[in-house]
């Protein structure tokens, strides 16, 4: 009940256990304050994070489980922010992957304190963001989408896109162009011609 009043609109709440954690130095663009919570970081109304350094985990494998137990079933999105600071991480990560399934945690790996800080900032600042930018293809200007369209087959690059369009004027003409004619464009070798023609002529469905 005390939490609600203290929770500023844009502050990350940090457990006092995290005092001295170097990642705090990298939470720069948002305010943060200490608070008494079962999680390590509170990143929003329904989001919390536990922090684990693999180096520490190797020494105290039981630590994280006691923390998870303490967390109970609170919060909707429960991040386990893991700092990969040892080289033989395979075993630990395998075990933690399993744990994440059982305890409903979402693993996020980071490789530096800086990256960790950035993740915390991102989670907090995107709290109310809409996922639109990862939801659908980005609207772009005509030339960008044009270039992107033409360069979809891997062998074709920007220069080829330029020569293609400048030779034909419209995309439609370029799509309808016969392969022999395409081969006349400087820079368009057989492979490119073949890739382009098969990309635009190949059926969407394998079978009809």
């Amino acid at each position, binding site marked *: 009940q005390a939490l609600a009043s203290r929770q500023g609109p844009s502050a990350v709440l940090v457990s006092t256990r995290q005092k001295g954690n170097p990642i705090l130095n990298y939470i720069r*663009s948002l305010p943060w304050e200490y608070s008494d919570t079962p999680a390590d970081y509170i990143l929003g109304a329904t*989001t919390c994070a536990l922090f684990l350094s693999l180096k520490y985990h190797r020494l105290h494998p039981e630590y994280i489980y006691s923390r998870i137990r303490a967390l109970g079933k609170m919060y909707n*999105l429960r991040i386990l922010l893991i700092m990969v600071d040892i080289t033989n*991480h*395979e075993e630990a*990560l395998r075990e933690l*992957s399993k744990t*994440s*399934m059982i305890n409903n945690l*979402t693993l*996020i790996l980071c*490789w*530096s304190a*800086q990256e960790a800080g*950035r993740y915390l*900032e*991102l989670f907090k600042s*995107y709290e109310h*963001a809409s*996922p*639109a*930018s*990862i939801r659908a*293809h980005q*609207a772009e200007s*005509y*030339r*960008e*989408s*044009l*270039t992107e*369209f033409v360069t*979809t*087959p891997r062998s074709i*690059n*920007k*220069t080829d896109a*330029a020569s293609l*369009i*400048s*030779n034909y*004027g419209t*995309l*439609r003409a370029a*799509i*309808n162009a016969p392969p022999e*004619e395409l081969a*006349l464009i*400087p*820079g368009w*070798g*057989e492979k490119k011609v073949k890739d382009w023609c098969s*990309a*635009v*002529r*190949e*059926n*969407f*469905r*394998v079978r009809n």
Partner: protein
Amino acid sequence: MPAGSSTQPPVKLSLPLQFQQDLYNLLRAEDLLVILARGLGLLRIVSNLLHSYDATGNSLVIVVGAEDRENDWIGEALAEHYAISRSLQARGLRVINTEKASVPMREKIYAEGGIVSVTSRILVVDLLSKLLDPETVTGLVILHAEKIIATSVEAFIVRIYRQFNKIGFLKAFSDSPEPFISGFAPLANMMRNLFLRKPSLWPRFHVTVAQSLEGKKKAEVIELEVPMTESMRAIQNAILECVEVSIGELKKANSGLEMEEWTLDSALHKNFDVIIRRQLDPVWHRVSWRTKQIAGDLTVLRSILHSLLSYDCVSFVKYLDTVLAAHSPPPGSTRQNQSPWLFLDAANTIFQSARSRVYSGKVDDGSVLPTSNLPDTLRPVLEEQPKWELLSDILDEIERENYFNPVIRDDSNGTILIMCNDQPTCRQVREYLQTMRLKATKPEENGTGQAPHEVEEEAEKPSAEFMLRRKLREYLVWKRTFAQVSASLFEENQKSLNGIKEASISNNFRGRAPPNKRRRIRGGGAAGTNPRTANGAVSAADEKAAQVANLLAEIQPAGDETLVKEDVVIDDLTEAGDDFFELYDPDDSLVIHPYDADMDDNLLEELRPRYIIMYSPSSDFIRRVEVYRSSHTDRNVRVYFTYYGGSVEEQRYLSSVRREKDAFTKLIRERGSMAITLTDTGAVDPQEAFLRTVNTRIAGGGRLAATAAPPTVVVDVREFRSALPSLLHGRSMVVVPCQLTVGDYVLSPSICIERKSVRDLISSFKNGRLFNQAETMLQHYKNPFLLIEFEHNKSFTLDPFADLSSISTLKLPENDNKDLQSKLVLLTLAFPHLKIIWSSSPYQTAEIFEELKKNQEEPDPIRAVQIGLSPEEEAGGSLVGGEQAGAARTFNPIPQDLLRCVPGVDNKKLQRLVLEVRNVQELANMSVRELDPLVGVESGRRIWKFFNRSVFEGEGEGEA
């Protein structure tokens, strides 16, 4: 001729040479990995071997790893053998290479037996689903053995095959030794992957090979070195300088990588840019946009280098123009993101010299610049490729010889064969030969390079002037529109470089001294005199309109030109593909053909040429001629081998020969020292291994029911491209291939996994596919996972090499230039219950899967397949062969990716279009009215506009 060692009527073979027979006999006797030098006719040996099995009947031989062309080759060869030997059992080659071959069809083909070539991805699925029972296979013939690494699909196939079939034969072939020598004990590893014990190496310097080819029937080879012209040499040197600088930049920017091999020397090697890309690929998500840009530059530079030698001067300039347009930033841009090589003096040299080969100002001091106020007239120079003249000389010589010493009667035709690198070169040579006798200029006007006194003579020197003038006319017309096009098209092309560039660019330039300042100082001195932009990069030198008009007037059709139709080339095109379908007398025909690897063998056999002119060097073609010559006692052949002296072309040729030789030497040494290690590769019996895992499981106590069945993973058939299914199988899990709609792997009724390599992850964030996949997984499974898989032994981190500090100026979610981390955050916020698995390699993924599966029920393949299907599809969804349900909805990925780029197409519309429209071409040709019922008027109009907007009209009605 050696006959097959069977008791059947002898199989007729066509292996005239000693080494071929030796190799064949070896192969009949035991299982081998054969590495043969390129050009010695590997496919001929393979097809003879296949025929010997084909002719005996009652066999099912599977050919793995053959490309389409090889399938064609082998198919043809087998048919020929069949015609010769008339063995009743032979059935020829059958090919299964697309999903079009339906399951019943495949089953039938397998049941009938014979020689079947199957695409690896289909074969592995069929083997796993027991559509093809491994025990019924007589033997496996593997082509391109060099591609078989431990995690490849082919290695997987061999493993399954050997697991169930210990007696069938297994023979692997390769004609490229180079890949076998990288890494530690590479040959031994390769042999282990192939479950083979004995390698057999056949370099060109092998005694038998040398004896077979260097007997008294040696081919006559005449080497002709042509010097490059002054300007060509200048351009080549300049390009090499640019390459060197680009490599230097790469090294500087990526200090953490292995780069000993990034030298100019290796830059001459054919696939240099590919090698660099391959090295960078695993860390592609971490390198800065600048590195990406330079890697792209190297590709461009390499292709410029190539076109310098193969294109005529006009096409070369045209190509350079496009390169420049695609690489230059909008005028007045402050962003310093141009390719570094464009800032070099050398780049300037490239463009200047290239242009001066085509035309120059009358007062010749490089005054084609728009800034200078020197004379307004340009004059065509039209430098010819030196090889052209040489070519016509050779043809003259041949003609003369034929005239003076008519016909040594032998079995070869009088045909002259000209071999070039690629189709465009063929076309160019053809046009040259057609037009070299045509006079372009009226005699009195002749001041354009050719010695004037010769022009009027009957035996005029051949000249490419006619052709080049035509090209120049085309070029000038094209150029006029191009300026506009590039303005409307490429102003902001830099934006599309990549997604995270924006973030890191600000980052890169904030901390350090602003690079643009430095550049400006460097380029500033030259700005007045060079055709450069303010920031020092090369810019297109746009000639004044008057100058161009003048030039155009000068090259207006004159003399013979007016008599000949303008579109000579276009007429030619229609027959371009059918070179051999000529009804001319073969004795005086001239055939121009590109190199086509193994197909060349057939070409030689069919044409039986008396003379061969190699327009560009090729080491394997020489060998083919040797083999051809040695195989036929009664055919004489003379080879003219032409190359530019001191050129990249020459060095490339020499280094390819040397590299092959080195590779073989190394392999021979390794073979000498590895014999013992291979005898015990018999591997642990997989069944034993399997039992062991089950036992430990039961020892854990708990749920015996789950352990009674072998651990099973349902895998989407599309996932067989990756290494993971093979590794899962290697960890003794049962891999069930299915056509999944939701997820890639199903581990238990509640666990579903979508696998993404880092590259996939980036692209599927970009086009929104991942969001939808996550959505559907959540709908159907209790525990959906996103697996982010890194590459084995490669950097396991998302950190970019550059530091993050300045990205921390957080951007609003609307801003679309965001890095991977923030997208990941958005994804987890949107789907709190989506779990993420981070795996450093496919090996670790396999272990994690095993861990996750513990104490879980086994998945039900039928259920897994049906999930996500709409009800009516579900009704039809059966599980024949383990992969059938919804097979009708197998989609081709690339056309779909194209579709995703079209503005106005979102996911829902995409689905609709994919179902209703046949292909991209059809969509491009649809009218708004036709599109309306599918996607609505609004999107329909946008789609239509996208395809039909003309870049010539410049900026206008376009949407933002």
